[in-house]
């Protein structure tokens, strides 16, 4: 229990720290890629990814810093791609919006809202056929459910009883448009619960709670093979894209943020560990290790050469390589 919570904290902190580093270095204009930050959703993503484990597979969106790091822990790859360096597997072709590391089970992301949901279903189909026990999680925003392909994918997954978890990272907004201005129904989980799948919801920022929910979901999916839908609320701290607050824009009030920030996932988990008797020194040690890891990744990325210009022309077809 304590070990689990420590591990969850380490991951939360890793995600948070990596994004903080982006904020530090982004103004230097060396990471020329639009940043959709994950601040605020760390518990949601870490909770699910940790429950999923190494064998699970993840599909994400343009807002998948958290998911990439929670699933892969590979901050070297992460920063080398943001800096578009030779050391990245993607060679700068993807950037922040198109992270991908299939060897870690992080299968890719899409910046076309909802377009990865059906892909996740297909990946789950292959796993089911191959009987490899892998479960696929697809993260997406509350805006993605407006797209018809969400419903098509949900329907197909339920029909075919595919081992896939649809995780709605629900921050209540699509860019600046609130869910109420986009939805002709009162409750998404209620709608989805009329489909043949397991449905879970939570608005907890406590990673332990989310993790337990996800673990429960996985167990139920294993017992009764059906897809799962999780609606996990969180608050997006920053503007839709970029590293600034945007409360002055007027579409949402600062005090909303302040209320959520009270229960910031990283702080909540840190306080919990202290309550569980983990010493401040041990926390500092964990944090120092993470800090060092992240700093090293940033430094490596900064020092590495840009990917070769010829990369632009490589790899349109597989045989090209």
């Amino acid at each position: 229990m304590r070990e689990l919570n420590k591990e969850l904290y380490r991951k939360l902190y890793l995600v948070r720290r990596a994004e903080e580093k982006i904020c530090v270095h982004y103004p230097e204009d060396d990471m020329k890629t639009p940043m959709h930050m994950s601040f605020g959703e760390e518990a949601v993503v870490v909770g699910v990814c940790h429950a999923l484990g190494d064998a699970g597979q993840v599909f994400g969106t343009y807002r998948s810093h958290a998911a990439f790091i929670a699933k892969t822990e590979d901050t070297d790859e992460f920063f080398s791609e943001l800096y578009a360096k030779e050391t990245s597997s993607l060679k700068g072709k993807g950037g922040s919006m198109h992270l991908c590391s299939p060897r870690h089970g992080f299968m890719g992301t899409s910046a076309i809202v909802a377009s990865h949901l059906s892909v996740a279903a297909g990946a789950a189909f292959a796993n089911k056929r191959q009987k490899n026990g892998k479960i696929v999680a697809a993260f997406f925003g509350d805006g993605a459910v407006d797209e018809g392909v969400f419903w098509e994918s949900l329907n197909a997954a339920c029909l075919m009883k595919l081992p896939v978890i649809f995780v709605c990272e629900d921050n209540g907004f699509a860019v600046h448009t609130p869910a109420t201005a986009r939805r002709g129904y009162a409750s998404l989980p209620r709608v989805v619960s009329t489909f043949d799948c397991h449905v879970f919801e939570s608005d907890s920022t406590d990673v332990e709670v989310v993790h337990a929910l996800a673990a429960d979901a996985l167990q139920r999916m294993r017992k009764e093979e059906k897809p799962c839908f999780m609606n996990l609320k969180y608050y997006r701290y920053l503007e839709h894209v970029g590293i600034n607050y945007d409360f002055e824009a007027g579409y949402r009030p600062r005090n909303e943020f302040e209320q959520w920030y009270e229960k910031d996932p990283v702080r909540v988990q840190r306080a919990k560990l202290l309550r569980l008797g983990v010493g401040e020194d041990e926390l500092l040690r964990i944090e120092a290790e993470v800090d060092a890891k992240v700093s090293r990744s940033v430094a490596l990325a900064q020092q590495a050469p840009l990917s070769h210009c010829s990369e632009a022309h490589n790899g349109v077809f597989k045989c090209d390589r």
Partner: protein
Amino acid sequence: MIQEMERDPRVFVYGLGVPDHKAVFGSTAGLAERFGKERCFDTPLSEDAMTGFGLGAALNGMRPIHVHIRVDFMPLAFNQLANMISCCHYASGGQLAAPIVIRGIVGRGWGQGFQHSKSMHATFAHIPGLKVVLPTTAYDAKGLLISAIRDDNPVVFLEHRWLYWQEGEVPEEPYTIPLGEGRILREGSDITVVATSWMNVEAVTAADILGRRGISVEVIDPRTIAPLNDELIIRSVEKTGYCIVADNDWSFCGFSAEVAAQVAAKCFGKLRAPVRRIGFAPTHCPTARHLENEFYPNAEDIIREIEEVLGVEPTDLAGIEFYSHEKRFKGPF
């Protein structure tokens, strides 16, 4: 397909109507019985999701064949083609691959009309990362399909409805025809006709008729239009000095424009007349037979165009029996 499914257990076929008793004009007949519902199955009417589904299965090592009973339903899946499938290999730095075959059938005749008759091959070919194949003969269809299934890249495979009636020698054993190689359907020395899909049938008819009066028409079927290997075409035009492109599609910004532009550039100074393009009328496809006949170009149009280009007298076509859908296919549909 049966042979490939036996050879490679990763191959599966899916799409609307695939396992039913009509079996997509018979093209998937027997698969469900032989390989079971696991490897040959029907889907909800969800072209968009079922295309992404294929991509996902391919990413995890399977080799899906997705069948659309009309190309006209593929616009619903265009996002997956343009934004996902075509680029996943490139954008992942080669970490991902999408060996998926998307079969689409080009409808025609008996009132198919504007929503059941599109070919759209230029639209797909315009997007890097998609291979686009249009077989004409039965022999080619088999060899190209096997190559498409074995290819590690996404292949859009477009079959003309009428070509299912094509008869031809098809060896029983599996064989491949490399994607990216054209074929000379009829050798000739006076003029080159580059044709796609059904227009090859019309072009060969035209070549036969003109051949009787001593005009020697070379008909070239590129077969794979993307990526296009135009060597065969260029060599032929260098020989004949004349070129007509007869494309089974609209002309504007179509494949005929690409071929015409390439031939004009690469055979500059060797062309003895401008390249001509024959394609659908610049309208939507009407449903009535007599209007359809206005919409689709045919062997006669090709003959007239050739005669004009070569500056010869019009052939007397009275009494010549053209291939006619009417004669083969009687309603009711």
